[in-house]
């Protein structure tokens, strides 16, 4: 398996692991994480920390194993895969950011009067959007590289 395919598989697995970790953290925090900004911030910070650590360690490990290929430039097929993946992930990211901004605006406008509105929601929405965007980026690239569509 090529270096870049290894990286994509590992990135995908990391993202799936992060989804599991996020769900676990949210379940552990209970309602507090959904309606309390500090609790939500703790969840987001811990997930981001785990993501950075996992990425750095895994990428170093793969680079050490296949040190020669890391220096090779992407060929045209790999560049197309990157563009397709970026298109999907940017669409998801933009949608999530717009939804988070709308949610933020609603919370600032009506948050005092309505209990179901919380600043924790846009924060968690951005986290979920980030993970889904990265997962779709990885998945789309792998699909293109293996299926060619």
């Amino acid at each position: 398996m090529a270096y870049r395919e290894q990286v994509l598989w590992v990135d995908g697995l990391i993202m799936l692991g992060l989804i599991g970790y996020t769900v676990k953290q949210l379940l552990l925090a209970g309602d507090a994480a959904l309606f309390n900004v500090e609790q939500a911030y703790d969840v987001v910070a811990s997930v981001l920390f785990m993501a950075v650590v996992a990425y750095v360690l895994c990428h170093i490990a793969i680079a050490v194993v296949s040190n020669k290929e890391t220096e090779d430039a992407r060929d045209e097929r790999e560049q197309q895969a990157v563009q397709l993946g970026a298109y999907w992930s940017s669409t998801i990211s933009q949608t999530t950011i717009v939804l988070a901004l709308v949610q933020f605006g609603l919370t600032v406008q009506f948050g005092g009067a309505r209990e179901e509105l919380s600043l924790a929601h846009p924060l968690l929405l951005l986290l979920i959007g980030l993970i889904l965007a990265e997962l779709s980026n990885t998945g789309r690239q792998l699909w293109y590289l293996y299926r060619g569509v």
Partner: protein
Amino acid sequence: MSKCKINNQIRRLRFEHNEMTQQALATEVGVTRQTILAIEAGRYSPSLEVAFKIANTFKQPLEAVFQYEPEST
């Protein structure tokens, strides 16, 4: 609406050129071995530049390596 399929003779040509490996062809053309594999399997249509480089490696005209086959659905 019509679909097009591009067939290729790369596998046969590699065999005829002292069983040239995919890696050797990839190095010659300047792409990865996986890209040569994808082109051979018909999962990827290369750019004109790469197509010409492949044909040039085998010292064949482009149409001897790649064949365009229109097919309507």
